[in-house]
């Protein structure tokens, strides 16, 4: 496996040289492998937003470096610009950033900036729209005529249309109802599977991260506190809770069961796996 993004000794200080200088990211190093689906969690102020803004060169490190495909983002003016296209960043509540006359033009905004040919832009808009479940009739509408959920999906399509190697989404499900959350998570996973791109999902919902991510990166006080497979991270419930985080509710159920002496498996963090594990246990019980 090759690293698509390499973060090397990254430090970011706000208000450098002023009395209220604040270290938001503190000497952080890690690699992100191509094709991974990573959940990025951390409490408010843990440094995760500052961190992700370094991954496509929106922010410049105070110290250290960020490499994309082995090359520093900050090598040249050209590479800084290229980073914006290779790593697509979708901010929180992206629907507030819709501005074009039609949904189609809005989705086309990124590809247009990439100076692609008209035909290619149209092709990419159509593909991105289908990934997020927007129909041709939606594309001709003003973004402001869409429902809240449709607006959110249109905004995400705008980033997908750039066909980035890495797609970073900051809280893409915030404020959506349970069905809307599942729809958005599924469409991100479909996009990852069919394009082979790498996904970083920033979320406060442990349930969402558990459902979607294969690896979890935990930020705490500007440092990487954990970076491991999802089940291994959620097995460390106590440490997570000390960091103001949490584990999915089923994991809490399982930790009570374990305390009471029921021989359930470790690393259960989705309802599907929990059902399987209890069923396994019950069958074993009957056999005895």
């Amino acid at each position, binding site marked *: 496996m090759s690293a698509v993004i390499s973060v090397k000794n990254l430090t970011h200080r706000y208000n450098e040289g002023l009395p209220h200088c604040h270290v938001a990211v503190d000497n952080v190093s890690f690699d992100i492998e191509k094709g991974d689906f990573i959940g990025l969690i*951390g*409490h*408010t*102020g843990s440094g995760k937003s500052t961190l992700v803004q370094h991954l496509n060169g929106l922010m410049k490190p105070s110290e250290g470096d960020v490499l994309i495909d082995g090359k520093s983002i900050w090598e040249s003016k050209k590479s800084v610009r290229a980073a914006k296209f290779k790593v697509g960043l979708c901010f*929180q509540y992206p629907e507030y950033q819709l501005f074009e006359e039609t949904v189609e033009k809005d989705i086309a905004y990124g590809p247009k900036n990439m100076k692609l040919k008209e035909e290619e832009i149209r092709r990419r808009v159509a593909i991105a729209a289908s990934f997020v479940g927007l129909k041709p009739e939606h594309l001709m509408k003003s973004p402001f005529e869409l*429902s*809240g*959920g449709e607006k959110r999906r249109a905004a995400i399509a705008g980033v997908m249309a750039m066909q980035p190697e890495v797609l970073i989404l900051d*809280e893409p499900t*915030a*404020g*959506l*109802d*349970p*069905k*809307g*959350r599942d729809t958005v998570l599924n469409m991100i996973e479909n996009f990852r599977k069919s394009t082979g791109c790498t996904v970083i999902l920033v979320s*406060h919902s*442990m*349930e969402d991260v558990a459902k979607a991510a294969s690896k979890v990166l935990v930020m705490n006080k500007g440092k990487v506190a954990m970076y491991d497979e999802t089940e291994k991270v959620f097995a460390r419930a106590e440490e997570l809770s000390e960091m*103001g*985080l*949490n584990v*999915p*509710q*089923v994991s*809490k*159920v399982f930790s*009570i*069961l374990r305390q*009471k*002496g*029921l021989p359930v498996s470790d690393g259960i963090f989705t*309802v599907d796996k*929990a*059902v399987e594990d*209890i*069923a396994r*246990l*019950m069958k074993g*019980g009957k056999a005895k």
Partner: protein
Amino acid sequence: MDNAFIKFNNVTFSYTVDEETGQRIKPALKGISFEIPKGQFIAILGHNGSGKSTAAKMMNGLVIPDEGEVTVDGIPTSDEKRIIDIRKKVGMVFQNPDNQLVATIVEDDVAFGPENLGVEPAEIRKRVDDALKAVGMYEFKDREPHKLSGGQKQRVAIAGAIAMQTECIVMDEPTAMLDPRGREEVMKTIKMLRDELGVTVILITHYMDEAVKADRVLIINSGKAVADGTPREIFKDVELIKSLGLDVPQATELAYRLNKLGYKIDYSVLDEKECADAILRLAGVV
């Protein structure tokens, strides 16, 4: 219900008017009726676009019904002369904490409401201190609001409503933008409002684990009330909840799915402890 504090009587409302006929179309609320007694903590659920936020905005007269009537403590919200009385009784807390704090210092922000009501300065001082103590933010009174965490900002917004001595606080997804600790802080504050101050709390949320903590759950779908009961009654009907685009807590879902597999497990469980107990009973451990 004689002690109804908020009353919706056959309320219809639409945001859009057909340009040709002049008629109101696509109603957000369609003849909805329900009552909320004083001191209750009620969670209102519904998918995006179900009409629940419109209902919330009607509770202090931000939106007035096209047809039917909403009354607050007996006062119809359509009575323009008494709208200030209604706003004194019902406070609002919205989703984005950054959009509702107005002052540069925490205590000034909490004082903003009572100042506008013309309360005496000495009384304002007392109310602000009491309100900040109630939400556990007194030691932050001299801080700048933008430097607080999301949960802290929401608690300051709630303190602002307490300082106005509102009898009821309507919260529209107050935890949607918060991290787990922030959500916990807000939920603890809601419990305090109900248990210690006797405030009526209306919580609109997409988080089912928050709804289970309420006294009552009301589900709105397509502008109508479709389910109303205690959390235990409501979340037992897993199929109905899912058909409405909602979800049940993971603990309930786990027990429900085991039950569907043929295991004799009670799935009227609401949290991790109840679910674990039910599984332990099933496994014959207790």
